[in-house]
Structure formats: C-alpha cells, structure tokens
C-alpha cells in the first residue's frame, strides 16, 4: 500500500465526517417533543366551538357537567350540584344536538357524615360492581381561605339505589395534600382508574393516576398508584403521567382503541386533548381541539371542564365534550346573563 493511497482514503473519510457532523433534520411535523406543535397547548388560534347549550330547559344551571349511564337513562350532574338545588338530571337518550328531555332529580347528594357544615363538591362518577359512585371533594368553611372554603380531602359517595341519592361514606379516601384522585374516574374491565391533578406551579397542574378493583373503591388501602413504570401501594411513589395539564377527564374511545384525555389548562380558554393506548399512558403531546365560546361571559372569563360524555350522534373519530365559562369577577356569574355560564356541549375530532 502506497502512502498516497492512505492519504486519499484518510482525506476522503475526514471530509465525509466533517461534512456529516452528526445532525438530524425533521422531515415533517408529525412529532414535536416540545408539545406545542400541531395545535398543542400554546396554539391560541383553535377555532371557537360554541356547540349547543346542554340541558337548555334548565334556566339556572351553570358549571360543567359529568355524566354516567344508569339503566336506559344518563345521569347528568353539575359541578355545582352541591350548591345549586336541582342540578342533577336524568336524560333519556341524550344526543349531540342538545335536544334533550331532562327529568330534574332535585338534590341528590346527601350531607357528609364527617361534618355537617361541609360542602360535598362532585368530581366524577363511575360504575362499581354494585352501583354508581361519586368521587367528591369535601370543603369546609374557612374565612382565611380563598373563596371562604378549604378542602379537607377526597371522598366517595355510593349511590343508594332505593333513593337515588349519593351517600358519602364515613371516611375520606385521601387528604387534601394528595392529588385529588377522582377528578376523573374510569371503569376498565374489573378496574377503576382515578385521575387527580394537583397544582405544580403557576397555572400548571400535574396529573396522577391510581387504580382499584371495582369492588373495593371505598377502601383506600385497595388503591394502587402508578409510579411511572409499575403500580405500587405506596401513594408517595406516584409519578405524574402528564404535566402542565388542568383537571383531566379520561374516557375510552372504542373506535380508535385509545384512551382520550381532555382538559382545559388552568384559567385558559382552550380545550386540549391527549391520547394513549393504556389508562396510565404514555400520553401523546397535547393537541388543542377548540377554543371555548366565552364571548358572552365578559372580560376575565375563562373556560372550565372538558368532561367527555357518551351521547348519540357523535361521528366516529370524535368526542362529545362539555365546558362552561367561569369568572373571578365579583357577581360575574349572577349579575351577568346566566346563559353565558351555562354548560355547552361540543363535538370535537379526536387528534
């Protein structure tokens, strides 16, 4: 081998390596690890989805809705059901066009046996082995707290089949310094998955998931927590499954064989979705589905909710979601037009 041969080979490879310098160029926009591409959370240009007013015949109804099938009917419950008398309804065959005939149920949440002056604020509903249960947050009056109330924990209220009332148990499941599991509750086979989102920073909530046998939902010792790779009985080992979310709601979409998580980031106006093939994820990057219609709610209004509902007339590949406008403006929800804060139902494409 001649020296000149070595020189040619070495020079060729040297030039190639220098030219290469190990780089990567994205060829399309299907992936962005920042989570903001393709209509992610930062996308403020999502089209406004006004949809239709859910339960249009109920004049005083405000706040977002959660729902569950009970027999041939669907029970709808306002997030304000504990403070608004009659914010629970049975609806026969609800549809995406909001043309519902609702039967008001009156006050269906019994007082807490823990404290008589406590407020039982509904979170989400789930079917257990024997009945339907409501996860709730228990608030107590506290003049030093924001809005005059303070959470002391999360509890469970099984539905009494005879009375139709949700009856809180004698004990809370989690204290208020835990993630509020039950913000979303989902039945998958024999298991119930409960999701809780807790503030992790300014306008940012991290969400966690736990699961339990559908026959043991009232026993906190029976819950297992996802630590990022496995399920553990140690609640302290739980790991966030998504970050910078709001109060997430998770349902299974059989058409796409995926779990769909919807939420509105704290004090935001955009409905966001993520998807996964398992209840614990891993979850896709967030995609902005639509902006809430807040035009009539006045300055300072924001969007809340994004609970999913099983209603008729939803095209394949879409999801029915409700949201409601909210505001911190004094008297905003009472002095303004009530319609502006009523729950609205929109049908949005699953990303």
């Amino acid at each position: 081998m001649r020296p000149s041969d070595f020189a040619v080979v070495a020079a060729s490879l040297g030039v190639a390596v220098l030219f290469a310098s190990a780089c990567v160029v994205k060829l399309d926009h299907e992936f962005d690890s920042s989570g903001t591409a393709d209509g992610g959370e930062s996308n403020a240009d999502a089209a406004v989805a006004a949809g239709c007013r859910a339960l249009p015949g109920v004049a005083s109804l405000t706040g977002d809705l959660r729902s569950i099938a009970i027999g041939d009917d669907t029970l709808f419950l306002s997030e304000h059901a504990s403070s608004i008398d009659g914010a629970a309804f049975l609806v026969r065959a609800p549809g995406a066009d909001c043309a519902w005939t609702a039967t008001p149920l009156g006050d269906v949440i019994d007082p807490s046996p823990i404290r008589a002056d406590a407020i039982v604020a509904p979170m989400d509903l789930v079917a257990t082995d024997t009945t339907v249960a409501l996860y709730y947050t228990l608030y107590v009056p506290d003049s030093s707290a924001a809005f005059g109330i303070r959470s002391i924990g999360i509890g469970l209220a099984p539905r009494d089949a005879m009375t139709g009332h949700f009856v809180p148990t004698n004990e809370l499941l989690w204290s208020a310094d835990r993630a509020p599991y039950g913000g979303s509750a989902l039945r998958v086979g024999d298991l119930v998955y409960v999701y809780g989102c807790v503030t992790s920073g300014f306008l940012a909530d991290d969400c966690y998931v736990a699961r339990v046998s559908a026959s043991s939902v009232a026993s906190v010792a029976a819950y297992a927590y996802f630590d990022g790779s496995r399920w553990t009985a140690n609640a302290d080992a739980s790991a966030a499954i998504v970050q910078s979310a709001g109060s997430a709601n998770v349902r299974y979409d059989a058409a796409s064989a995926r779990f769909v998580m919807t939420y509105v980031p704290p004090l935001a106006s955009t409905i966001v979705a993520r998807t996964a093939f398992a209840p614990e994820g891993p979850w896709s990057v967030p995609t902005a589905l639509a902006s809430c219609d807040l035009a009539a709610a006045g300055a300072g209004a924001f969007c809340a909710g994004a609970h999913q509902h099983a209603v008729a007339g939803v095209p394949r590949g879409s999801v029915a979601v409700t949201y409601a406008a909210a505001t911190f403006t004094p008297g905003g929800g009472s002095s303004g037009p009530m319609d502006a804060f009523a729950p609205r139902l929109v049908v949005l494409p699953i990303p």
Partner: protein
Amino acid sequence: MGYSYFWSAVAPSRSSFVAAALAASLCFASRGARADDAQVTWIPGSSREISRFVSASRDAPVSGLVFGPRVRATAAADFAIVKIRFDGVALRAGFDGLFDLEHADTGYRGLPLPGRGNGPMLWRGMYRVSLALSAERLARAWLGPRGAIEIAMTVGHESDHVTGDTFDDAPRRGDIVAGGGGEFAIYEVALRKPIAPKLDVWGRAQDRAYFRGPIFHAPGIEGGLRWRAWPHLWPTFSLFGEGLLVNPNLNGAKDGWFVAALAGLAVRGAAGELMPFVSTDAGNGKGLLINRRELRVSIGVRYAPF
C-alpha cells in the same frame, strides 16, 4: 394504504411461493447427493454467504456504536449454526439477534455512550432464525471466482420498549403503534459479483412479511461495493431502502419508508472487522422512534467477528 391492502392480500400466497421455491431448490440441490458427500461444518461464521456486516439497514445484525445525532449502541450476533455443503451448494442454518439501545433525543453529556445520551433510553430486541442456501458452483460459473447467489428464509421477532415513563411519543392518529414490532418471515435473494480484480458489487432484495404487528410488509432492497484495496483496509459503500406497508385499520396508520447510505473503511484482522463509518439516512426511525420522520447524518463504528 392501497399498497397495504394489496400486500396484505397477497402475503400468504407470496410467502407460500417463496417457501415452496426454497424447498424445491433444496430438494433439487440434494437430489442424487449421498450423505457421505456432504461436508458439515459447525459454527462456520456468518449465517449468510453474502455478509450483512456492510449493510446500511438498521436491522442488520452488526454490533456497533453510533455517536450521533442520537447515541446508540447495538449488541448483535450473527452466526451459522451449521453449514452443510453438498453437490455444489451450501446450506446454512443460522441465528442472528440484536439488542439496540438508542436515546430518544439528540446529543450527549460527556462521552457519547449509552446512558450519557439525552432523553429516555429506548431499546428494541430482535432475533431471527434462518435457512440460507448458497448456490456456490452456479455462482462461480455465472458470476466469477467470488460470485455468490443466495436465497434465504427467516422467521423472527422484534419488540420495542422504553426504560422509564418519560417518553411521550404516544401515538397520534396516523402513527404506527408499538414501534412497528411483531413476528415476521423474511424471504430474500442476494447476489455478489466481482466487477474488477479487487472490487465486488453485491445486492439483496427481500420482503419482511408480518404475522403479527402493525406492519403488513416491509419490502427492501440494498446493494453496495466492497473494494479490497489493501489486505487490511477495505473501503465500503452501501445503500439500503425499504417501505413500511402498514395496517391502516390500526390507528389509521400511514405507510412509512426508510433509505440509507453508508460509507466506511473496514479494518480487517484476525479478530474480525472494525469499521468506522458515516451514514446518512432518511425516513421513519426505528423502534419507538418509528413515527419520527427525519433526515439523519450519523457517525459511528461497527464490529463483526466474522
């Protein structure tokens, strides 16, 4: 998507045809050969007459390190368990497997080695067993002294995983799920021909037909040049391309593709070949990065004992 349906429809018949052809070749080749004519060699080297060491495919069973853009390491083994030579042909029953670690993000901290790359570590495992039939006498007659003609049938498995929970490339609609892994059969035909006293050209066409997994078929073609320039230094160049024809009914997945070019300088010795290389590839990634379509320029080094 139309292609996917097409390949799905013809998969069984194509597989059957190739299997039948392979079996017929075996029968034809062994006809008249007496058992005491056969030369049996245990662990004779690579599972193929035409080695895949120089392949630009990410599925080639070759150990190596890639320093960038993503730190990657592959531990691989490729060997024939037995080689039976008889009546002008050689039959190799072989095994190959690889364990591929790749960081999800580009760059590294400190040294460009696994564990020092950025992002969660992804890994994929693949193993395959094969029967390869090399028509040695025919190849020498047709293609010259280093010529080779080889057909092979392989069955295998690939699975793709992530360590930890921070990898959130969860599928969006249209993505290929589960990293594209599954169980498959590969049928291939390869040729090698000397085109100059020290220069060989080789090529291989193959199809990976899946029994299970989000991909129906992955037809591919590759080829390259090996310049036996010096006893211990062989400049090498290869090209590879494959399509990923997927099941559109699974997450509405879209077909994918992958093309690559590799240039390296193989340093040959008694302990095998060591080859620093530069590779440029484009299209879908591998494993759980399968839905990242990128143009990547990589540098690395690979090693093969045979």
